[in-house]
């Protein structure tokens, strides 16, 4: 007896690609995640895949902007330049994240998949940076 395997890209394999077509019983889908150093979604031999992820580039840009603002406030508000620099280094070293947590997700031979990944650490890091900046402005009576 010939064994048939599900092929997500074959319109004759169960139902064709397209929303609402559904997946029949017996279809094989492979979705697994592992912690890795890259933020990557790898899709192979699949269709109708929708991936929603945290915008990592926006997170990095915002983190850098807030860190620069902290450096700026320290630089203009503290009379001793070397003291300002030491405080800046100490502060940013303590609150900077070494690397955003990233996941690698593999989607293979799948159809009609929706994946949502949220980088919670990015949000927390940005919130903390902003709070430090606000506390700094208040502490130094800048405004």
């Amino acid at each position, binding site marked *: 007896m010939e064994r048939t395997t599900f092929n997500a890209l074959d319109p004759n394999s169960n139902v064709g690609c397209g929303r609402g077509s559904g997946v029949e019983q017996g279809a094989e889908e492979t979705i697994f995640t592992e912690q890795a150093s890259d933020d990557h979604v790898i899709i192979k031999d699949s269709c109708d895949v929708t991936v929603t992820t945290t915008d990592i580039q*926006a997170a990095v840009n*915002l983190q850098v902007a807030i860190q620069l603002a902290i450096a700026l406030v320290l630089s203009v508000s503290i009379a001793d330049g070397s003291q300002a620099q030491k405080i800046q280094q100490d502060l940013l070293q303590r609150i900077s994240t070494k690397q955003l947590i990233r996941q690698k997700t593999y989607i293979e031979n799948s159809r009609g998949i929706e994946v949502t990944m949220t980088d919670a650490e990015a949000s927390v890091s940005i919130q903390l940076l902003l709070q430090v900046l606000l506390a700094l402005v208040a502490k130094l009576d800048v405004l």
Partner: protein
Amino acid sequence: MNESDQLANKLGELLLGDVLERNGFTPSSKRPLTPEQKQQIRTVLENLQVETERFLQHSQRTIRRESKPNH
């Protein structure tokens, strides 16, 4: 302000207080700012708050993908 904001606020204050103290910061360490400098900082701060709020609310992007057979 929700709980996570309050927590971040408190953590930020504690961290900052500790760093300033360790590095010998005192009120006399401060340098007076001109009104122009204060306005510049105010503008930067407001922009960053807006951008942070925008990021926290809309930090996700959606991509729809289809792949070709990998033969």
